[in-house]
């Protein structure tokens, strides 16, 4: 006999001979094959599975679930980042750099280059714009090139922000993205005075890091810089990011071990992106396939370390797991819907123009201004609510994009109009041929498959990562 209940919105995928149901807030249920058909045909038994489906908002015994308000509040919480609006403000202080990275994503220029550093006037107007954002916590992130080449400009920017902060009452966090090669005492004094976090780049062991930098002594200098910064600011104020170069793809274990050896508690396994000089990498399809393989190998090694009692986490997985296993939203701009651009990040470029994201200004370095939103001298409203942003807003939610709207993973993934534009020629994008989609899908499915097939082993580890 058919049961009487009502369906609630959900999507599904199939992984490891099971059906994975995902509801509107990203809650996941792993059920045996054939369950979806039985749910739809009202052929469920009143057993534990049925009760779980009701409790987790996949079906409802009443037309309007009695706890709909709770469910709506959870949905709102998952999209909380929209309430805050732009929280991350990237200041591209200069394009000058003292390194020569093979995959440079910022199209940096030589240390002596002229006309590629922000003026005080642009810095001041950018700070003004940043404070127009309603976010309760603002992050002011200095990027380059190598921003530490200009400590006086950074001090000027922070002092302007501090003046505003004191009258405005909001919290401002400062981040310096630096290669740590030449961290001067002057720069560290600024960091100490204003609690500036240091985010540096380290691609793995010496042979790999140096090869990626096109130098023979870069590794030694970075390690010395990290040590100096830790001593001056404390370990927790210094973090590192790696980028997986083509050569790095062959060394997943060595990269993880290097980070663990240096006392870092986590690692973000980051793929190259196709901007800046990095777009000269010829075969993205091959790279993406190999990166997925690299990710899994590195991840398995991280799990092994955890089983040996070393607390060490992978940051991309943490973002996915947080979306899957907790009620909270994440602040990671690359996996958001509506997209992180403008909603969560704005970029003030050295030349006085405002861009939708870091990747947008990298496109501009190639002469493509599709995501230039205006100038730092413009009115805030014209920059963030102007025609350009309205056009982008039409296609920045994966809930309404072909391919994504029917994808069970959309609650964990994000929309990226800039990447679609730069790799596929239009902001809307074509999911079946998108390499970003392929990568995200493969990694998210891999994490789900671990939960399905090796639950006892991995879930206790994942829980420690989410503490």
């Amino acid at each position: 006999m058919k049961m009487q209940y009502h369906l609630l919105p959900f999507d599904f995928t199939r992984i490891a001979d099971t059906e994975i149901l995902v509801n509107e807030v990203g809650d996941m249920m792993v059920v045996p094959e054939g369950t979806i058909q039985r749910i739809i045909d009202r052929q469920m038994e009143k057993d534990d599975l049925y009760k779980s489906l009701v409790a987790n908002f996949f079906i409802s015994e009443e037309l309007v679930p009695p706890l709909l308000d709770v469910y709506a509040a959870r949905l709102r919480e998952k999209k909380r980042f929209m309430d805050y609006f732009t929280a991350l403000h990237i200041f591209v202080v200069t394009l000058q750099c003292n390194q020569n990275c093979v995959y440079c994503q910022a199209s940096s220029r030589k240390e002596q280059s002229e006309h590629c550093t922000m003026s005080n006037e642009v810095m001041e107007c950018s700070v003004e714009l940043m404070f127009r954002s309603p976010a309760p916590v603002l992050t002011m992130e200095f990027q380059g090139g190598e921003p530490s080449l200009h400590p006086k400009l950074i001090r000027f920017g922070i002092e302007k922000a501090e003046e505003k902060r004191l009258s405005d009452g909001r919290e401002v966090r400062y981040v310096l993205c630096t290669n740590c090669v030449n961290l001067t005492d002057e720069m560290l004094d600024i960091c100490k005075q204003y609690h500036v976090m240091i985010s540096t780049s380290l691609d793995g062991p010496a042979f790999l890091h140096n090869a990626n930098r096109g130098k023979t002594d870069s590794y030694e200098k970075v390690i010395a810089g990290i040590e100096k910064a830790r001593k001056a600011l404390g370990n927790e104020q210094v973090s590192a990011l790696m980028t997986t170069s083509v050569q790095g793809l062959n060394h997943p274990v060595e990269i993880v071990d290097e980070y663990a050896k240096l006392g870092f508690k986590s690692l973000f396994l980051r793929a190259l992106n196709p901007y800046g000089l990095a777009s000269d990498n010829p075969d993205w399809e091959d790279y993406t396939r190999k990166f997925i393989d690299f990710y899994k190998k590195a991840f398995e090694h991280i799990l092994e370390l955890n089983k040996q009692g070393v607390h060490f986490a992978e940051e991309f997985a943490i973002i996915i797991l947080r979306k899957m296993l907790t009620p909270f939203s994440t602040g990671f701009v690359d996996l958001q819907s509506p997209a992180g651009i403008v909603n969560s990040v704005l970029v003030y470029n050295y030349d006085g123009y405002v861009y939708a994201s870091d990747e947008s200004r990298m496109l501009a370095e190639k002469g493509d201004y599709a995501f230039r939103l205006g100038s730092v001298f413009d009115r805030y409203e014209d920059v963030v609510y102007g025609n350009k942003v309205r056009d982008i807003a039409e296609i920045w939610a994966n809930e309404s994009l072909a391919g994504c709207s029917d994808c069970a993973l959309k609650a964990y993934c994000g929309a990226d109009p800039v990447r679609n534009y730069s790799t596929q020629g239009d902001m809307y994008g074509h999911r079946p041929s998108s390499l970003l989609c392929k990568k995200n899908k493969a990694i998210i499915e891999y994490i789900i498959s671990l939960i399905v097939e090796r639950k006892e082993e991995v879930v206790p580890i994942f829980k420690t990562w989410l503490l």
Partner: protein
Amino acid sequence: MKILIDRNIYSDECISKCVYSLSEVFQCNRQLDGNTESIELIPTNGFISDEDTKRLFLQKLNDFKLRQIVAEETKDIRTILYAKAFADYEDFNIEEAE
């Protein structure tokens, strides 16, 4: 290979979504004759046996049909859910909306 689909069972939307999802794997030609749609699938890259083509296509098609049923049956409650979650007023009342 050619697959014949009964349009009384699978809607245009359902078939379109299926074809889109496989557009990297197959080039597709669609032709409607009465209530039967003939779908020609040509692998874009390399060889895929007719048997595998059919299995892949029909499995995807069935999944899109399941999604379509869920989407249609839950359209209203989804709208209410999103209105409740994101409307800018606190006292949105379902009874009044129904």
